[in-house]
């Protein structure tokens, strides 16, 4: 198997007049990886992705995508990648199958429209006009169009923004399928749970820079935030709570049955709590362990919320 990265970015910069949108970023994406770019609006992720898609020229630095220079080999690159844009449209009166046939004609290699319609559950809508499709169906068609050339690399720009949770889950399923097919996916998203669930690695961008990069778990572990252990007992707890190992803060709820403990080493703390509850003769009704999320990591690193 080739170890050559699918995407290699070195000191990439992009300026719009006096505004420097991307300030020298470096990263690589390996084959079969789902790589997430997380960041608030204006972080520079769209500029980065559009440079890699061959839609914008970089101001400085280097980038290769599938071995092509996105600045100089735009057409060859576009022929090999699939792109699902966030803000896009098709003519109102084009039929679903016609759109697929039209876009298939732009590429040197293409998948049969029937196959894609079936896979994206659009077979029944093949003769429907674009204007009559629901938001979810339009997004499925956008994904079908991104797959029409059977690309090795896919760029998905906010693929689930504005969709209801059910459709979002369907799209997640499709991205998981793409991953299973060993396609490389670059995903930009606002949704933390999407990145945590789908991405092998995530780069967090802020003000044109990558402020952290790694697997979601690695990033969570790097966080200075503590895990939160929440315990509900069958009867109220009496007296003061002990100081458990590695516990930073303990709080008792108003009904004295619910207890929240923040810990740096949640597994060890939880084990000690269980032992203590057993010694007290208390029954456990419910327990939750919540690790720091990517959102916590993001806030910690940038001082902002993702949707700022």
């Amino acid at each position, binding site marked *: 198997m080739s170890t050559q990265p699918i995407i290699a970015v070195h000191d990439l910069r992009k300026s719009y007049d006096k505004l420097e949108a991307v300030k020298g970023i470096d990263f690589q994406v390996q084959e079969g990886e789902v790589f997430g770019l997380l960041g608030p609006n204006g972080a520079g992720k769209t500029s980065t992705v559009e440079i890699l898609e061959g839609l914008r020229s970089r101001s400085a630095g280097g980038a290769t995508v599938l071995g092509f220079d996105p600045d100089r080999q735009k057409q*060859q690159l*576009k022929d090999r990648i699939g792109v699902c844009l966030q803000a896009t*449209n098709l*003519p109102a009166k*084009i039929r679903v199958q016609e759109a697929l046939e*039209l876009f298939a004609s*732009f590429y*040197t290699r293409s998948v049969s429209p029937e196959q894609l319609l079936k896979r994206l559950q659009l077979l029944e809508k093949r003769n429907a006009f674009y204007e009559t499709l629901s938001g979810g169906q339009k997004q499925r068609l956008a994904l079908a*169009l991104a797959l029409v050339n059977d690309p090795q690399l896919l760029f998905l720009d906010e693929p689930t923004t504005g969709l209801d949770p059910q459709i979002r889950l369907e799209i997640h399923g499709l991205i998981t399928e793409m991953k299973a097919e060993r396609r490389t996916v670059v995903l930009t998203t606002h949704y933390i749970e999407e990145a945590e669930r789908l991405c092998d690695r995530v780069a967090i961008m802020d003000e044109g820079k990558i402020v952290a990069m790694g697997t979601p778990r690695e990033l969570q572990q790097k966080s200075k935030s503590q895990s939160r252990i929440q315990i509900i007992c069958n009867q109220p707890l009496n007296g003061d709570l002990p100081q458990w190992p590695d516990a930073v803060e303990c709080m008792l709820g108003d009904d004295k049955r619910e207890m929240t403990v923040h810990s740096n080493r949640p597994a060890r703390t939880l084990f000690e709590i269980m032992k203590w509850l057993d010694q007290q003769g208390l029954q456990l009704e419910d327990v939750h362990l919540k690790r720091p999320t990517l959102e916590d990591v993001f806030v910690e690193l940038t001082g902002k919320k993702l949707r700022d």
Partner: protein
Amino acid sequence: MKAYLELIKIDLKLALRLRTVIFFNYLFPLIFFFTFGTVFRAGQSASAVTQVMTMSVALGVLGNGLFGAGIRSIQERELNILRRYKVTPITPGPLLVASMVTGWMIFLPYIVVLLSLSHFFYHMPWPQHTASLLVFISLGLVAFRSIGLVIASVANNMQEGTILVQLLYFPMLFLSGATIPTSAFGPILQIISGFIPATYLVKGIKGIMLQSQGLLALGSAVAAMILTAVLGWFVGMKLFRWEKEEKIRASAKLWVLAVLLPFLVMGVWQGLHRKQEPAVDLKSQAIQKTSAPSGSALAP
């Protein structure tokens, strides 16, 4: 080639699915055709029906070119449709070719309908150079669609585009002889008319219809259409924008002057070598019923 054919096929289907396209390409000009026909008593003289026919063709070409190509292109950009094409390996070339071919394929039946109506309804003899007429009208259509594409390229949004189209459409309509014969103009208006692109379209059609001229005899009109088409195409390709966010540089708008250059030159030339056209009384012309037999050349 596959992309070109597929784009033409889809463009044609999309155009025929839109009621506005059918209305503005067929019904709307026909309303004018019959209105002009009634006003100018088209049934009473060959020159009157030819004038009516020329007006209707010019109206159709202007509408198809400026509104059809120009406004539609801006609409597609504003709706982010072109943005979707941008991420594929396609270049502006096939999109512009498809737009041009589709516009021509939709317009040509209208010419056939107009000729037939003029012949059967107003007894206009068939033109002697039908092929020349169709070729010249096609050239005119390509030229005005190219101007439409240039407008689409320089207009930053629909509002700007509509203003630009109107600024060109109405002077072309009224000062080119498309609605009012230039012979009815005073000397200053006749000079101004020499700078209007549509004047050469009207002159060419009248030359073929009324004077039985072939394409070669229409040198300046044919040259103006070809040059406009080539320059318009070149500028349209050069300034083509896929996204509404891509704003055009003010300096790039100077390219538009390049498209209008042939008309500036021809306007100056016409102004210097101008002979006052004799005033024409359309009403009295219309009363003189022609005796030209069907199938013969039209009387000038």
